[in-house]
């Protein structure tokens, strides 16, 4: 990978990290309503996807994809702060605060929205892909699913249908080792999700989701395959999430140390950049730049107004008004 490209991805990863860390802080201070799941630790996987999906593609983010959502917004429209505002439930958010963390969408940047019934979009993605195929568009339709979400029956229905119809679907499985507190190997017949996907007969690949270079390359390969009209592709990213459960950290110390210290995606990229001769100062500048930008987004979100109350019953139906009392 060229230095420029790696620097871009490094910048993207820092955007995610800064976003999620600031968000966690604000959440703890009570400014962010509802629940919060962060993508901390998964920045490389997210940046690899976000940097290669075009605005005309489609992705269904999962509950940890604030980072992907923000990057897509930033890259295609320059308004990543609207993802932050959505998380604060504000009128300036991408869904005017009606969706929140679990339902942020903006189709103009390819973001088709999370569905907090995790994994239901494994079925939905088929329709976007089918429409693209029927219309002869070279669109990639991507479903981002956690390892735990693979437990859903829709996994089978979706992979099977994508296979028989040769649909342009990219399954991006983010295997961070756990579903809440359940280890992937206890929840599934195999800790390697690709083992469950192989039977459908399309390419399945595992990649180190914390190695931005490897992850980026794998995504590129998968997207080329799909755009060439060769049908679905399954990618499993091995990664790890920093966030524990509400009770705190539940994973073995050595495991925590490995992932947070020895195999942190940003530190790994940092090392790679250093090896390429990018100076510490330059790297730090990227970090500060992104941290600073995110603080502006936080301010923007906080200062934005709540949606007008009339919004509450708007858009229940297209063809009917719903009474507001």
């Amino acid at each position, binding site marked *: 990978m060229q230095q420029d490209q790696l620097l871009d991805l490094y910048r993207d990863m820092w955007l995610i990290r800064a976003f999620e860390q600031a968000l966690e802080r604000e959440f703890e201070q009570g400014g962010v309503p509802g629940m919060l799941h962060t993508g901390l630790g998964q920045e490389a996987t997210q940046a690899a996807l976000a940097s290669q999906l075009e605005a005309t593609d489609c992705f269904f983010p999962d509950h940890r994809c604030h980072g992907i959502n923000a990057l897509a917004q930033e890259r295609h429209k320059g308004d990543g702060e609207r993802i932050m505002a959505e998380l604060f439930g504000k009128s300036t958010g991408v869904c005017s605060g009606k969706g929140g963390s679990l339902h942020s*969408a903006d*189709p103009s940047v390819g973001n088709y929205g999370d569905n907090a019934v995790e994994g239901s979009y*494994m079925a939905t993605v*088929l329709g*976007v892909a089918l429409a693209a195929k*029927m219309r002869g568009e070279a669109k990639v339709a991507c479903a981002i699913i956690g390892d735990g979400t693979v437990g859903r*029956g829709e996994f089978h229905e*979706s992979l099977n249908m994508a296979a028989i119809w040769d649909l342009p679907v990219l399954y991006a499985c983010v295997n961070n080792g756990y579903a809440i507190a359940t280890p992937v190997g206890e929840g599934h017949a195999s800790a390697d999700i690709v083992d469950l996907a192989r039977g459908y007969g399309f390419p399945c690949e595992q990649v180190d989701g914390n190695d931005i270079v490897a992850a980026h390359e794998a995504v590129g390969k998968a997207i080329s395959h799909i755009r060439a009209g060769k049908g679905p592709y399954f990618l499993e990213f091995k990664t790890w999430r920093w966030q524990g459960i509400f009770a705190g950290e539940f994973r073995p110390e050595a495991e925590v140390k490995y992932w947070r210290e020895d195999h942190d995606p940003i530190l790994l990229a940092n090392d790679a950049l250093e090896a390429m001769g990018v100076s510490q100062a330059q790297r730090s500048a990227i970090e500060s730049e992104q941290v600073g930008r995110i603080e502006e987004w936080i301010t923007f979100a906080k200062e934005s107004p709540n949606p007008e109350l009339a919004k509450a019953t708007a*858009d*229940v139906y297209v063809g009917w008004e719903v009474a507001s009392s």
Partner: protein
Amino acid sequence: MSTSTTKRTSFTKALNDALDQGMDRFDEMFLIGEDIGEMGGDFGVTRKLWAKYGAERVRDTPLSEAAIIGTCVGASMVGMRPVAEIMFADFLGECYDQIVNNAAKLHYMFDGQFKAPLVIRTACGGGFGGGPHHSQSVEGWFLNVPGIVIVAPSNPEDAKGLLLASIESDDPVLFLEHKALYRARGEVPTGYYTTPLGSAAIAREGTDITVVATMRMVPMALSAAEALDADGISVEVVDLRTIRPYDAETVLASVAKTGRAVVANEAPKIGGLGAELSARIHEECFSELQAPVGRVDGLDSPIPFSVPLEHEILPDEADITAAIRTTMEASR
């Protein structure tokens, strides 16, 4: 409704015509479901469309109800107009999440950025010994779900017009086809026309009592009304046609006129459509009402296989007649 020529047509063929004319008119429309292609569907509603429009637009699927509806939702998010067939309404449990949490909510939760202009056609209702998993009336499963449109025709002309209106609708539509009506015949305009969603029809005018009915209960109510005419009871029959959002205006105007009402629906009574209509009528016509609103429904039971037992469970013309008489007699 159009002024085109009409033709005597079965309910099934009227639906088939609607799909045909819809497919012809809307490039974004496609059909999807189990064996709807060459075979033409379990009830023949999609017959010949595969041959005419091809396997891309008349799409057979495996037994994957969640994926079928998921596919419709996704396709409709990008502007297609999918029409799914779920072979029996009883199987909607398999795709309940996709309908309730996805199709019904996405326009709202994503702040109007997506629409879900999809139609889910499905065969519902009992009366043919289909047993507990092939006979249910499922409108009650979806009645409390904002965002979904529920359409329920009672005759061939409406079936065609309402299906075309459903295809045109930008809201997700659950389109209920009562199995006992498939063979019903009637005059149907041959051209393209739509019958408005959310609008009830006065199927028969009357002055003494209003019967609000859906699907197969409509012909039963009409027949009961004819018979009661001889006894000097003048029955107005309102065919609800759209169950959600329903046409309260027509219903309430009729009851305001007659001062009495019976609601007739095939599903079990408790928590059914009859409850909603009864509550609404009582709320809004409290002072006009001369007797409490009567409810005619199925008994609070699954539907058994045995035909005589099934007959016990499901409401029929005699039940409607009895409810009308009771309501007339109870009037203050």
